[in-house]
């Protein structure tokens, strides 16, 4: 029990992001309808972005603006990279939703299996 208790005390916020990542993966594995698959992959993407943001995290680090001494600054590099990653995530989700609307209006269903059957005829 002691090892388990030690293990849990070690868990930090970034492990929470890893949990969210695999919940998204679980969602992508089990969801029947297309819109929920898009949502769960969106969750995976957001979890990966949160995990990246938490790197080089120290307690009490201040925002990287002039005036704070360089050692106390929070790491600006992940923040800048994640602005790019978030915008990419937004564009891809927008593309998926556009395709989702097209699929629903054309085949009349949002379920993966019914869609595959309707594709054949």
């Amino acid at each position, binding site marked *: 029990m002691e090892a388990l208790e030690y293990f849990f005390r070690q868990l930090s916020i970034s492990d929470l992001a890893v949990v969210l990542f695999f919940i998204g993966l679980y969602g992508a594995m089990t*969801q029947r309808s297309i819109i929920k698959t898009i949502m769960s992959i969106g969750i995976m993407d957001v979890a*990966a972005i949160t995990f990246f943001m938490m790197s080089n995290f120290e307690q009490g680090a201040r925002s990287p603006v002039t005036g704070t001494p360089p050692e106390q600054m929070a790491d600006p590099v992940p923040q800048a990279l994640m602005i790019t990653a978030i915008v*990419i995530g937004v564009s891809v989700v927008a593309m998926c939703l556009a395709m989702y609307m097209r699929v629903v209006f054309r085949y009349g269903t949002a379920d993966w299996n019914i869609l595959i059957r309707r594709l054949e005829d």
Partner: protein
Amino acid sequence: MENLLVPLHMLVLLPVGIGALTFFLPRKAYQAVMLLGSLFVTAAAVQLFITVRWGSEIIQFVAGWPEVVAIKLVADGISAPLVLLAAVFFTSAYIFSTRAGHMDKTFVFLFLMLESALFGIFLSGDLFNIYVVMELSMITIAILIMYKQEKQSVYDAMLYILMNFIAMAFMVMGIAYMYRLTGVLDLMVIEQRLAELPDPRAAVLPYSMIFTAVAVKAAMLPLFSWLPRAHGAPSAPSIVSAVLSGIQVKAGVYLLVRLSIVFSPVIDAQMLFLVLGFLTSVAGFLLAIAQKDIKLILAYHTISQVGLIIMGLNLGSDVAFWGGMYHIINHALFKGLLFLTAGVIIDTYGVRSVKEIRGVFRSMPVIGIAALAGVLGITGAPFFNGSISKYFIQEGIQGNWAEAGLYLINFGTILSFVKYSTILFGSPPRHLQKPRKDPFITVISLAFGAAIFSGGIFGSQAVSLVFGPQYSAAGAMGIEKISIFAATLALGVLVYRYGVLRIEGVLSGVRNFKYNFNQITVLISLFFVLLLGYSYITMG
């Protein structure tokens, strides 16, 4: 370094710049400006290749910032030939379809953006930059394969984008672990820092996350179900399928090579990728035999050839490595030619299935000859470039189980292309209207056919010209190789006549079997577990 016609970042952004600027020109002028622009880009790529091939490799820090901070663009022995191949391929595909109907401004803009995304992948030396450029190429392809509005099957594009979206989420997670571990984003600096790691097991997790994403991009065994429908989609114009199968899959393979060099001080998974390459190749040609639609035969066959390339690259011997790289160039040539000619055949015949198209030789002699050159090239007929690269890969194997595997793959390739080439012979249907004489199509297809043929004749000189090391390919033209090819060809025709035509029921079952999306995600996670376990254990 200074005598470069165009600095590296300019070369990457030039195609998009041309596309964006010519958007405001009137319709008549923009076609000529596009042609001039792509010729200029090809000239810059040729000049870059010459300086890298005979000079030293070029490393350029964007905007002159110091080594740690700036994004580094690297043009070395592996990436410069691929940049040249991409530039020549895009220009010839662009010339090939000057008369085609769908060449409006948005299509050409997306086409040039795909070209600059490919340049970005080949030249980039920064981990996060590779992710951003892979994302750009993914979205551009999703639109290009759906470009013909009327015959739109949205399911293929949806499957393509969602699978690659999962792969990209894995990639961001891998880069996050990488940044936490090494604190730097540059590939070369990461390589040095990985060597200093006290315990190499720390790099197992980022390794398997990044390589799952790269495996989806390079269409490895369980994860290739997006590729045939994306490349062979009915709504994809033929030059898009040609470019995708010719160059885009190679970007995935190139990333596999580049990132395995970065991770080489810590993890060596060559045996795993050798086995996976072999299995991918076998699965590829088995599925290719089952298809009816000629574009799907070619698309499934791309998977088998990519598996062969991955096998060649991961054999560990230098001959096989440069054989694999030469096969990347050969495959771009003959698969691109086959897709271009297939597009023209489908337009004139109006039918896509192998059974109904007959007599391409009589109705379109030039397209028939070019397609025949492509088929001979891909099956590795002697005096054609396929045989040279396969000969080099075979030299690298020498006697372990993979040599028998190579014969099986060759036999599968011949079998699937015996099925494909039935469209060439026989007599064309009466009502077939004469295809309009298009000089561009004939010029480009004959040029590709000549390149395939000359690549075979001067094989070893071509390898030493493009990559450097000089290997003698005399054996490839030897009597022994010709007899083996003739025997396999005869066996292939026999097996096709009596075997494949018999088991039509099995084939149609294989053809209509589709994974639904949940099973594909389970396959991706299982691939991730396989990679994680394998690299953890072999770390030892």
